């Protein structure tokens, strides 16, 4: 019961940090919002694994951490080098 309430609060916070992606004036603001949003999704997956007592969901959380890191690094390098990778 407590975990469900915490998940609801965290999803509202994720909604608020998605607002920065929509508003953000520059492209880097949107990348910052993507970083915040993916870290909140990871917290939600861990809490969901606690609520359902299924430990294999944590593997998905690990995959999310690594893949979000790769895609953010890739987009940031792409913008910095102006289209050359």
């Amino acid at each position, binding site marked *: 019961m407590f975990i469900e309430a*915490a998940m609801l609060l965290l999803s509202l*916070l994720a909604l608020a940090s998605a607002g920065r992606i929509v508003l953000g004036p520059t492209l880097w603001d949107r990348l910052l919002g993507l970083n915040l949003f993916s870290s909140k999704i990871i917290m939600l997956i861990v809490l969901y694994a606690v609520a359902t007592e299924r430990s294999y969901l944590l593997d998905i959380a690990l995959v999310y951490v690594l893949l979000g890191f790769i895609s953010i690094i890739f987009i940031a390098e792409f*913008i910095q080098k102006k289209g050359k990778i």
Partner: protein
Amino acid sequence: MWDHVGNAIIVLGIVFVGFGVFGIYRFNDFYARILIASKVDTVGFMTIMLGVVVRQGFSYFTWKVLLVLVVMLVTNPLATHSIARSAHYSGYRVRKGG
């Protein structure tokens, strides 16, 4: 007993994450926002994971949570640093006094 301690730590972590989300609306220039977001969000993540560990006791589950925590602790500052480096090397500057 440990249940309630873990719940309290998770609530503390959610408060930290809430401060981070408040910070990205509070400040007007980009570098202040990225400073706030990186630090406070990483601290909130650590606190929530430690709360989960305390709540669950010591088992196979908590080792996996600690592995996620360690990987996140390495990669999240790197990702934020990469964004700020991309902005700085592209020449994005904040106007003085504006």
